[in-house]
């Protein structure tokens, strides 16, 4: 997952659930731009994320990123793509619009935090009432249209 998904999942309290249900990997560059720099700037979420490393959230070292990635991406997203290819991962988890556009162009499988929550509810990893609470916690962090789409999908599961 990239920095954007990591931050949103942490703020919504979803990181323990996601890392319990799925094996989640972040590259060193994401760790650096969220945890290392975040701690230097005294962001409390940086400490919270650090506690998850080795408790479900794994760090990986990405070798060189593919050359065809555009300059609109930073070192975090570039290393996510590199690690995805290197580790033969299933999906990339992100909510970053610029990154999502690149993933679609490259036809790389991906999902957003809201869709990840709906998928976990579908799989029975999160009870439906709890999934609705988590979605409400995600609400201030995502666009309203994405929230409405996820809410409608959760409603279909009843």
């Amino acid at each position, binding site marked *: 997952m990239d920095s954007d998904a990591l931050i949103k999942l942490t703020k919504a309290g979803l990181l323990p659930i996601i890392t319990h249900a799925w094996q989640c990997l972040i590259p060193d560059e994401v760790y650096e731009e969220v945890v290392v720099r975040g701690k230097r700037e005294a962001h409390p979420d940086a400490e919270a994320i650090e506690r998850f490393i080795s408790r479900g959230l794994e760090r990986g070292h990405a070798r060189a990123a593919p050359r065809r990635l555009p300059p609109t991406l930073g070192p975090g997203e570039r290393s996510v793509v590199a690690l995805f290819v290197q580790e033969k991962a299933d999906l990339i988890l992100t909510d970053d619009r610029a990154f999502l556009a690149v993933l679609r162009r490259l036809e790389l499988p991906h999902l957003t935090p809201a869709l990840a929550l709906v998928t976990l509810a579908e799989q029975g990893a999160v009870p439906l009432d709890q999934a609705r609470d988590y979605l409400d916690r995600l609400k201030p962090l995502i666009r309203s*249209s994405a929230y409405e789409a996820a809410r409608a999908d959760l409603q279909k599961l009843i």
Partner: protein
Amino acid sequence: MPTSPVPLRLPKNLLQVAELRARQQRIDRAAAIRQLLYAAATDYVLELLSEGRISLSKAAELLDCSALEIHRLAQERGLPLGSDAEDYQQAQASLKKLKPKK
């Protein structure tokens, strides 16, 4: 962050703004110009991020801060970040390709 000298001609009114800031903040004029430039650069980078023209990591790299700080700055300005309903549906389509067929 390393710095480089840039030869630049500024209009008088902007120099007056910089001097005002320099006096108020008790800093030299060059530092005031850098602060004003940084404030404008922050707004511009956050706008690009909100429009989906650059990524979060790129924004953090350009402003030389953490991704958490970028989130805080965007929230402070009420700028929405992240995917919309169309991105959500496209991600659903991407996910369906992965799911084993029954």
